């Protein structure tokens, strides 16, 4: 049984997202911004699987996002202009990419894990950047929007593509929510809270982290595949570590370890970027400043504000500065 407050929150978000194509033009923004919010939310959710639930400081998820984007865009441009097949190919590619680098990552924790995700994430960027006769190199390449089932089936544009993405997003968010309440998801959260104890129970935590990485790669790749179709374009900076950092920041802006946090964070980020970049070319200063401000002042993100206040009322003695993310993240400093 869901709590009443949660029901209200979920209904509010659902209504907001469904009405977004009507609301955005009313304030002078393009509907494609709504699509971007949803797809960034997918990418941020993929970070959240590792960061929020498993307690792993993943800093390379743009690689999965970008592999998904390139996979679908290349398939649509060169093989078959079919949206559904393109999405499947892109997602399979990103899951495979996760499977390839996961064996290098699963035995590391703490900042070592971050370092490896930053480094391994960047390899895909350089492949896209350098393999220019296939990927178009630094400039990337554009595609034309594919018919949904190929051939003469209809092509999704504007708000119909938004609702297509929203449907996929809603299903995935529900699936993620279910997974995090399944024995598998609870084990991941156990790893975040106290990995040693999980291992004493006879559970091979490395294997669970492997699957979490695949899940993360799958979700990020699907987001990326939908994104390159949405902007009809694919370019290497999608996979750069700056993009990874943006995705992690979305999770922090919204609230780490919550299902809706990444969605809210993605909305803040995408809208801020869109609005600011129309005012000033130096928008990156404001975005970077916003990151710094949130890290210093609101480390639990917007959703964490309410949760933090509730918890403070419950146990007044809690130190708000300590261990924001589960204790498992700190592991690795003990010699």
């Amino acid at each position, binding site marked *: 049984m869901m709590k009443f407050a949660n029901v209200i929150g979920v209904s509010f978000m659902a209504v907001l997202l469904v009405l977004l194509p009507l609301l955005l033009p009313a304030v002078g923004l393009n509907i494609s911004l709504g699509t971007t919010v949803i797809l960034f939310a997918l990418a941020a959710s993929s970070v959240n699987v590792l960061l929020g639930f498993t307690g792993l400081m993943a800093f390379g998820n743009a690689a999965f996002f970008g592999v998904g984007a390139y996979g679908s865009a290349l398939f649509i441009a060169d093989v078959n202009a079919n949206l559904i097949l393109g999405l499947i190919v892109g997602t399979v590619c990103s899951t495979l990419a996760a499977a390839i680098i996961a064996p290098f990552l699963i035995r590391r924790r703490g900042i*070592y894990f971050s370092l490896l995700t930053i*480094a391994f994430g960047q390899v895909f960027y350089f492949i896209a950047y350098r393999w220019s006769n296939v990927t178009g190199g630094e400039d990337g390449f554009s595609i034309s929007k594919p018919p949904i089932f190929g051939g003469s089936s209809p092509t999704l544009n504007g708000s119909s593509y938004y609702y297509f993405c929203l449907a996929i997003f809603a299903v995935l968010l529900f699936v993620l929510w279910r997974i995090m309440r399944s024995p598998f998801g609870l084990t991941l959260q156990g790893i975040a809270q106290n990995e040693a104890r999980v291992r004493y129970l006879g559970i091979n935590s490395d294997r669970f982290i492997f699957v979490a990485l695949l899940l993360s790669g799958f979700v990020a790749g699907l987001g990326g595949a939908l994104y390159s179709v949405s902007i009809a374009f694919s370019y290497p900076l999608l996979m750069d570590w700056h993009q990874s950092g943006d995705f992690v920041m979305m999770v922090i802006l919204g609230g780490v370890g919550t299902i809706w946090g990444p969605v809210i964070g993605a909305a803040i980020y995408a809208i801020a970027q869109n609005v600011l970049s129309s005012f000033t070319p130096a928008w*990156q200063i404001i975005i970077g400043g916003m*990151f710094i401000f949130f890290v210093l002042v609101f480390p639990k993100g917007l959703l964490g504000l309410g949760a933090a206040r509730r918890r403070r009322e419950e146990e007044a003695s809690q130190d708000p500065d300590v261990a924001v993310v589960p204790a498992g*993240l*700190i592991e690795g400093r003990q010699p």
Partner: protein
Amino acid sequence: MIEHLAPEIVNGIVLGAFYAIIAIGLSLIMNLTGTINLAHGSFMTLAGYLAFTLMSRGSNFWFALAASAICTAIIGLVVERLLISPLYKRVPLYSLLLTFGLSLVFEEVFRLIWGPSTVPFSAPPELSGATQIGDVFLPTYRLFIMVALVVVMVALLVFLYRTRLGLRLRGAVQDAEMLAALGTNTQLLYMTNFGLGILLAAIAGVLAAGLLGLGPTMGNDLLMPAFITVVIGGMGSLAGSIVGGLLVGLAISITTLYLPAASEVIMYVLMAVVLLIRPRGLFGEEGIFG
């Protein structure tokens, strides 16, 4: 063949020395405070631009090198005190994200002040030209960089292993709490350590500006190979950073000669191979850093 290969090997060693010095700075900061400093590259670029500005106002190269390195290190100290030190008691993710935000701000500020394209930054006249060694002509500036970076590294090792402060820094990496209990001001140590890392980055930044060209992303372009150097050499090992840097530099420069398109990917291949054989990196110690 050898006349093509020899300059590339020198290139590789110069590049490798850069990666090593950047990686050492990153390692110092990472080992003591768990902060992965994503703004490290920005500090390098900052030092380059400061030196450029000084030189365009008529200063000579040597003064510009010293002044900009010291100024950058001081800016680093201020950043550490104001922004990073409040995060030491939190999980390392937050300092990683803070330095990420910082690098975004820095990069845009560079664009605003010095423009989006590269600025002309030339080596001083006494270091231009080439020196003949055997049958091979080598640019004097590259030889100078090699010598300079070796001097910096030796100075650093002497500092870390032959002074009281260096002893305390190494002690703090092992057990900062115990050191504090014995009466050392660890906050001061954290600050010194961060400043030291930034000083190394700043020196490398000015030297690199004369070699690679100075643009807003110069430092960030060098940052990724430096991260890989840390992984290959093993976290927490200075010797590892030096060996790792040289390996990465040589791999890149030799691949540039034979298969230019793979010149970046090769370092990832190298990293993967090293991690398969030695999961902790070449000189990494078992048990530290998860």
